């Protein structure tokens, strides 16, 4: 039992954090908005250059062969920066899904391009009503009936579905040619979709954790500077307690998200319930943190000028992404009301996982 990240895991995340601190600050987001853009191509190129798109793809197919605990802090960093580009969705969800089906030559060919940084694949999962970043994709993985298909971008037409979050590019799709490649069916397809959902929810939770921490950090920065009644408002207990309460939620989300990452590969009722718990806790923490940040900023918090709303909107978007609260409560409930409880079951797994 050792519930700590390795130095290597922390260093990898630190490299991403440094890149984002350098290239994805609120003023960078503002510049995009002013230009009517929702993605920065040069930043995305720099991210792709880091070679992380194949992070979770096995080494046997040319990926880095990393696992969820290696990526969870990266997803958290993307949340902290409110990164517009789809590193988390592509590297965390769609690419490993494609890699798990790479026995099919069409999948293998696309995967090769993805791992070379020449293409992006996105997942159109039934849990989500829309597809993110489809306009960037060379291929779309989509469920059709009980099957999992790979569509080329040319065989689809997309309708943009504007989001409250100016940096989320969402679409619905229609088949134009009816051409697609069936990659899996039956139990294999179902399992692949379930695993994708787990990773999607896990990394959405990690991003929400990052969003929450950023919101508290912004509010604390403001509360140190803003003066009323002759003193910084952060010296008043009303503000201190508001932000401290949000920080408590964050601190008790963090280990749940990290444990969910560590157990994700188990793919059993316990690990899925943990992921759902992580998603619920992270959405709750992000909600509390962002609303506290709006409140601490006073009327400025309700203005377009202050950056808080960017994080509030990301929190709102990710809260329902990869399963809303009702979905994840139901999954968490299957463990709570259907499996043994008690102090010796904190790290329980179904028997096959020992």
């Amino acid at each position: 039992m050792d519930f700590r990240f390795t130095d290597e895991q922390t260093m990898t995340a630190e490299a991403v954090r440094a890149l984002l601190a350098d290239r994805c600050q609120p003023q960078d987001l503002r510049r995009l908005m002013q230009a009517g853009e929702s993605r920065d191509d040069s930043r995305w190129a720099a991210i792709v250059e880091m070679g992380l798109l194949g992070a979770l793809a096995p080494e046997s197919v040319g990926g880095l062969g990393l696992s969820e605990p290696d990526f969870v802090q990266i997803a958290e960093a993307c949340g902290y920066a409110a990164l517009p580009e789809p590193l988390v969705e592509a590297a965390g969800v769609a690419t490993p899904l494609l890699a798990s089906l790479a026995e099919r030559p069409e999948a293998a060919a696309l995967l090769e391009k993805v791992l070379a940084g020449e293409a992006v694949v996105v997942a159109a999962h039934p849990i989500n009503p829309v597809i993110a970043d489809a306009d960037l994709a060379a291929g779309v993985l989509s469920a059709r009936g009980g099957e999992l298909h790979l569509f080329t971008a040319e065989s689809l037409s997309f309708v943009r579905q504007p989001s409250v979050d100016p940096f989320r590019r969402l679409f619905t799709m229609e088949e134009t040619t009816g051409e697609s490649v069936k990659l899996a069916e039956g139990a294999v397809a179902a399992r692949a979709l379930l695993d994708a959902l787990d990773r999607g929810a896990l990394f959405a939770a990690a991003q929400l954790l990052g969003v929450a921490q950023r919101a508290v950090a912004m509010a604390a920065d403001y509360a140190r500077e803003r003066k009323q009644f002759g003193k910084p408002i952060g010296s008043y207990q009303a503000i201190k307690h508001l932000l401290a309460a949000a920080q408590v939620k964050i601190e008790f989300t963090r280990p749940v998200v990290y444990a969910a990452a560590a157990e994700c590969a188990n793919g059993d009722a316990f690990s899925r319930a943990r992921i759902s718990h992580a998603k619920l806790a992270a959405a709750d923490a992000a909600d509390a943190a962002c609303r506290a940040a709006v409140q601490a900023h006073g009327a400025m918090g309700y203005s377009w000028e202050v950056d808080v709303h960017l994080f509030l909107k990301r929190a709102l978007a990710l809260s329902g992404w990869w399963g809303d609260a009702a979905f994840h409560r139901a999954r968490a409930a299957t463990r709570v009301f259907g499996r043994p409880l008690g102090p010796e079951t904190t790290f329980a797994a179904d028997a096959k996982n020992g």
Partner: protein
Amino acid sequence: MDLRYSPEEKSFRAEARAWMEANVPRDPLPSFDASREGFEAHRAWERTLNEGRWGMVTWPERYGGRGLDLIRWLIFEEEYWRAGAPLRVNQNGVFLFGPTLMEYGSDEQKARFLPRMAAGDDIWAQAWSEPQAGSDLAAVRATARRDGDGYILSGHKIWSSRAVFADWAFGLFRTDPASERHKGLSLIVFPLDAPGVRVQAIPQIDGETGFAEIFLDGVRVPADLRIGGEGDGWSICMATAGFERGLMLRSPARFQMAAKRLVELFRAHEASCPPETKAAVLQAVMDTDAYALSIYWTASRMRAGGGIGAEASVNKIFWSEMDIALHRAALSILGARAELLREAPAAGDVGRWLDGYFFSLAGPIYAGSNEIQKNIIAERMLGLPRG
């Protein structure tokens, strides 16, 4: 990151489980706060624990422990609570003063007090708060006046849990009469039966006498009962408070057992419960798991040489609020029967939920009120200015 127990950790769990199954009293002991008889029954249990070398598994062997790491301590606690073992009457000793002594005491003091603490021979109470020094602990007025090779203790301590029947207390005293606030304070221990000590029980919200006030009137103690340097009392006590709030005061297993019982209660009444009750039960169980994960996270880091800082305050807020929510969920399941005492003929399965609920209301107050903990979080974690 490896969230599986090693073979050694598993066999340690098996050993603890077997011992608990063989030794935990079949029937609950009478409350240690209601009578001397209950207190002594719990002292006897402490002795039994110590004979099995389970008194404090993290302590070095020479002081009665097993020299084990914090992960093993968590495993021990899980088995302890799983077995329904009695509450630790010496909690203030083994979880609070013991770690302090280990860190700041002299070798002579450790050898003198720790084995007797582990054995239940000395049961300890805390004597920090005063009528005018609660959340503002630095306002302590009780004095320890130097007198040759000793001190003369005078003052009025209050809210001392277990002090009615306990043997010793560890207290915060002003050794420098000219000092103010955090300076000039020292940590001094004293026997509760020393001449000049008078202990007055204070009935609690539940009618039991769990805490007391201590009147000290010219109590003479030798200087070797001072722990750490003269004037170092404040920093030592704050370190103690870190242990208390952060890690050892409320082990996760306690709440996970309560959550397990809550789910059993819910199952028995599911048909009459609205959906929001089920949601509250689910949240309570998830919160107890989150607390356990957080403590494993902290324990893993501390085992690798890390310390515990302001996150101790975060923990204290979380578990105290969680405990209240958990008990409120239980009371909502019981509905209109929740007000019935266990002895009421119509009580049915009301059990101890009402007692637990009242006790949970103390959680946000003791070991430093949650309002003070939020100030600590805001100032030390978030960098907000002091008021």
